[in-house]
């Protein structure tokens, strides 16, 4: 979308006219140079819609890169730690990628259209990394962030909403599959993916089609508890789902100033995405293989179930001898679980071999005074919330 930058330092997304109409708080933030809402009305209400109805979020600022060319499949397999050699057309995969020291740069999703066309989505901008990595491969990389409008449609009634919107047979789409639709004369790609850990979809279309799509989805979801939701509500849902956020739960290798702050996949619970026995080389393989063989992994990222109801934002984690063993990277009181949960980065063996006698020091603000709480923590699976409906095929439908 072209616009005169004299009037605005930040770009507006193709949905801006609609998101600004929906905003009751005028709270925005800068995501990759775009202005998008953090909160429309109240975060709690938006969260409730995501867990009980349909929530709609503007995803346009997400970094989107199209990878095309004869070597596209080989290149993607080389770029990421996961073995994608068997990846099927019209599917999506969750991926991470590392630098030469085997430290994680970012996570994201990769969409396969055919063996010569892929799309990579991630929270931050990585064009230079892709371009430098692509040297020697017959691929071309283009930044399509501005040319694709994207929406996240998440929640238990999301399938019904989109079906009413015009996505026929959508309930048959399996998780991590995608399908192209033609709705109101425009091509719309719908993938069964999301960042809330619930039933949900992401929708990709031409920016020209953005406003109509928003309006029609709003109409379709009227009886299905549809509500736009902002970044804060997304943060709540993603912690419940145990998803990690770059530069929150770990420092991106390309961004961290201190080498000791970089994290390998094994240190952030992403070891399952590293396939060292992959047939071909991938960026960081040598270092990761060495880390695995020499067992030099220093930290781990775990889920904590914390006593009490005061969220442990930024708390330091201690062992029974009151030695500092880690830090909470994200925390909340989970309304749906009725639990005080957190993600924490711990020094091994804590969190792996030693799971008992771990404490969080919580400073709870109460009207300009802090109450210090010493709360016992239980190490649990990071995926706190994982409802059956999330992966159910066909997906649940509601009238």
């Amino acid at each position: 979308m072209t616009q005169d930058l004299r009037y605005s330092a930040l770009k507006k997304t193709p949905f801006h006219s609609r998101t600004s109409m929906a905003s009751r708080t005028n709270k925005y933030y800068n995501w990759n140079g775009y202005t998008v809402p953090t909160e429309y009305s109240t975060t709690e209400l938006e969260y409730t819609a995501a867990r009980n109805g349909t929530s709609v979020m503007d995803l346009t600022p997400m970094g989107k890169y199209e990878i095309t060319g004869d070597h596209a499949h080989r290149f993607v397999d080389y770029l990421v730690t996961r073995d994608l050699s068997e990846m099927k057309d019209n599917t999506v995969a969750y991926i991470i990628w590392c630098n030469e020291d085997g430290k994680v740069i970012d996570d994201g999703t990769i969409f396969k259209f055919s063996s010569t066309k892929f799309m990579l989505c991630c929270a931050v901008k990585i064009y230079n990394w892709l371009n430098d990595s692509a040297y020697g491969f017959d691929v071309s990389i283009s930044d399509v962030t501005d040319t694709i409008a994207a929406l996240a449609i998440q929640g238990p009634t999301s399938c019904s909403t989109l079906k009413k919107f015009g996505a026929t047979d959508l309930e048959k789409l399996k998780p991590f599959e995608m399908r192209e639709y033609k709705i109101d004369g425009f091509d719309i790609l719908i993938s069964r993916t999301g960042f809330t850990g619930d039933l949900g979809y992401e929708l990709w279309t031409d920016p020209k089609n953005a406003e109509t799509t928003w309006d029609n989805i709003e109409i379709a979801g009227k009886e299905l508890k549809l509500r736009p939701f902002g970044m804060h509500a997304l943060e709540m849902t993603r912690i419940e789902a145990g998803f990690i956020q770059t530069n929150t739960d770990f420092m991106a290798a390309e961004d961290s100033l201190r080498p000791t702050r970089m994290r390998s996949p094994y240190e952030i619970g992403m070891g399952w995405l590293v396939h060292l026995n992959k047939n071909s080389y991938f960026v960081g393989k040598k270092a990761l293989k060495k880390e695995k063989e020499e067992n030099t992994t220093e930290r781990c990222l775990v889920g904590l179930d914390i006593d009490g109801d005061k969220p442990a934002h930024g708390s330091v984690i201690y062992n029974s001898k009151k030695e500092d063993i880690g830090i909470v990277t994200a925390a909340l009181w989970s309304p749906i679980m009725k639990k005080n949960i957190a993600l924490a980065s711990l020094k091994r063996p804590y969190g792996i071999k030693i799971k008992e006698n771990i404490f969080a020091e919580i400073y709870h603000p109460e009207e300009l005074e802090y109450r210090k709480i010493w709360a016992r923590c239980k190490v649990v699976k990071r995926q706190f919330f994982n409802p059956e409906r999330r992966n159910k095929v066909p997906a649940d439908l509601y009238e």
Partner: protein
Amino acid sequence: MSDNSNFDAIIIGGGHNGLVCANILARKNKRVLICEARKECGGMVNNEITNYVPPVTTAVSSSLGGMQVNYLPKTTIALSETGQHIRLVGNQHIDHKSISTFSSQDADRFNDFHEKMSKFSKTLGSFMMASPPRIMNNSFSDYFKLFKLGLNVRLLGKKNFNEFARMIGLNIADELEDNFENTLLQGLIAHDSVIGSNLGPRSPGSLINLLYRMAIHNNSLFGGIFQIEGGNDQFTEHLIEKCKSNNVEIKTSASVKNCIVEDDRAVGVELNNGDKIYAKKIISNVDPRSTYFSLLGSQNLDTDVKRKIKHHRSKGRVAKLILDLNKLPSFNNCDDIDLDSRMVVAPSIDYIEETFNPSKFDKLSLEPTLEICIKKDSDQNPKLDIQVQYAPYKTNQGWENVKENYIESIIKIISKYAPSINECIEHKKLITPDDIESEYNISGGHWHHGEIQIDQLFMMRPIPGASQYKTHLDGLFMCGAGTHPGGGLTGISGKNAAKAVLDDF
């Protein structure tokens, strides 16, 4: 995998470093194969490309069991349009006398300057001859080596230490202008500082280039310049003979397509004709860029390594003009001994800098700096072998379109010193860096397989993380001029690489 290895080591590229490396390995009872893409071994050490060579060090020659070639010392003569040439032989007294004809002050200062530079080049040289430390290793011996360099520099004394620190990033022009008044002398030394490099006399770092050159030329400015009796290819011939007696197998016209990688390890090579040969160690004598991008393959490299190799500066800036003559023209005010000397056309620092400027923009300078060498071909006919400094790797207009013009402009410069040159020319041949690239398979066509500059020397040569003759792939080594201590036809890279390979067996 390595069970069906036919050889202990395969060396890719039969240049002099490859030959040196092969001989040392074979003398330790390793079965060695050299795969040379061209019809003959020797690389750029031949009568066509090489004009002068530095002496081979005792360390290299003793590890080969002695080198039986005769080195003929050469005088350097800075040509002057007025006929007042400066002749320097590398002997303190003779050179002092020669320079004092023009300026007694310059002559005194030349001795001081030479003494100082010689001291620094020795300090640097002691560090240069061994394999460089690897900073990423955290090993004691590596830190000790670094400590020793620091200590050597410190032991120069406080005054010299400060002077060394001042000079390490300095440009040569400033230093020469501080010392000398004669522009011809300034031009001559500046020429030797920048020859073979991508720097002008006023580029920062051009001084260390000179120190580097001195370190491989007997720590002397003009003293360590030689030709080999019977032609420079005798150096290669001698190494090939040694290969034969050491049972090194040599395959010529065997161009290697890529390394065979199994389990993230180099286990052999695949030739362009499809043959596969396996060995325990693979040693690449080709330049770093080709080693990484062609042999290793970019699909086997980490992104950060690709970035480093892509930034590795390896564009050549020297062309070679060969003029076959029917008779030798007379050079103004030159006698027979002068004609047997290394003749340099670089009248002043500004002249060189002016020549350098267009090359930055891939344009030609029609008044280039020259190093002229008079040789005889097999029929005893004279020929001029001219090194032309600052001929860009690729020109904006395309070399094919400008070659003729360029040759004429070079001949025009020579005619200032040898007016009858035009009548003597039978045949002209210009070899551009571009030609060197395709003819000798050196990407960029750079003499030294990569710039000799502070960020591409020692443990940073060719790139950080790949020093000590190892590449990022286990089992694949490098022994070419792209490794420490770099080009200059010393064979030290080949010798040090052989040691690294032997340590790995």
